[in-house]
């Protein structure tokens, strides 16, 4: 039987090293299948995270041969070079808890920091806002709402690597969808939140995020739109308290 050599990062934030496993090759196999095989048949102490296995939940993000990917939908054939070796590690830019499991707290804290929670414009006694799917705002938000919070874009962003405070692509993408949501009250508070030192203006627009997003979203474009919107709203009070 042919095997694939899988090098898996073991350890914690303080210390980790790659451990090598041989996994039987199958006709159809995802990177998550490799990791699962190791955990089930070779070393039950291996820690990793997954839930849906069909690209819905966003919990299986890992670095595969140095690139961030959703492992449940990454076929081995797609990433296996002629060396028949695959390297699997925890997502970049997030603290490692153990082996392939990262602490997503900072990632989600930033969603809240950008104003990413719902700001209702109506109370429960009022009828819900009707949204025309053809309205310009809804069209701009269309892509942005399909995010599965996998953190792949966040792991791919060089600006997050250089500046751990930066909100990053996913949270800012979320902010852009809320700015375009007619149900959002007080959009200015979101624009204010994305205008600070950790905000959208740090983005270099090099589009790693859009390249790697497994759902083919375009956080980079959302961020560019945020910049334009903030620019327009701030230009009048250029030297105001926008810091």
């Amino acid at each position, binding site marked *: 039987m042919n095997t694939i050599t899988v090098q898996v990062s073991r350890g914690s934030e303080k210390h980790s090293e790659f451990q090598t496993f041989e996994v039987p090759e199958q006709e159809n196999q995802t990177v998550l299948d490799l990791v699962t095989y190791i955990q089930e048949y070779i070393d039950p102490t291996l820690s990793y995270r997954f839930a849906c296995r069909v690209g819905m939940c966003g919990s299986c993000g890992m670095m595969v041969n140095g690139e961030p990917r959703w492992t449940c939908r990454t076929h081995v054939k797609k990433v296996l070079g002629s060396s028949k070796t695959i390297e699997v590690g925890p997502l970049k830019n997030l603290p490692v808890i153990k082996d392939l499991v990262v602490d997503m707290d900072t990632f989600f804290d930033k969603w809240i920091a950008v104003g990413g929670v719902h700001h209702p414009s109506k109370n429960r006694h009022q009828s819900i806002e009707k949204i025309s799917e053809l309205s310009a705002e809804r069209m701009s938000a269309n892509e942005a709402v399909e995010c599965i919070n996998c953190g792949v874009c966040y792991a791919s962003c060089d600006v997050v690597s250089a500046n751990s*405070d930066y909100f990053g692509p996913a949270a800012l993408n979320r902010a852009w969808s809320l700015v375009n949501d007619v149900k959002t009250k007080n959009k200015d508070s979101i624009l204010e939140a994305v205008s*600070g030192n950790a905000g959208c203006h740090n983005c270099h627009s090099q589009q790693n995020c859009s390249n790697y997003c497994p759902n083919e979203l375009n956080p980079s474009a959302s961020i560019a739109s945020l910049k334009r919107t903030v*620019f327009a709203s701030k230009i009048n009070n*250029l030297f105001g308290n926008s810091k």
Partner: protein
Amino acid sequence: MISAKLFILQRLTALIMAPLVLGHLALMIYAVQGGLSASEILGRTQGSVFWAIFYALFVFAVAIHAAIGVRTVLFEWLKIRGSVLELLSWSLGLALLVMGLYSVYAVTA
């Protein structure tokens, strides 16, 4: 590490510089046609309010634009933070401003 305020300042100074760079390039091409000499340049610039304003504006835009750009490089690449970051980047801006305005004064006054 860059807020909306600095971002907008950098974009506005870029907006100012774009036509000035074109003007500057066009002038250089025009100026070298009959050979290049100090007296020829000074003959054109000395006492000219237009060129004084043109290049003073250029210097202001460059100083602000460059300081903000270098500030990002210092922050992201050299991991310089806090007041050292502000001091270094704004000193650079100030130095460019002083040297630039001094040259403008030297050739136009």
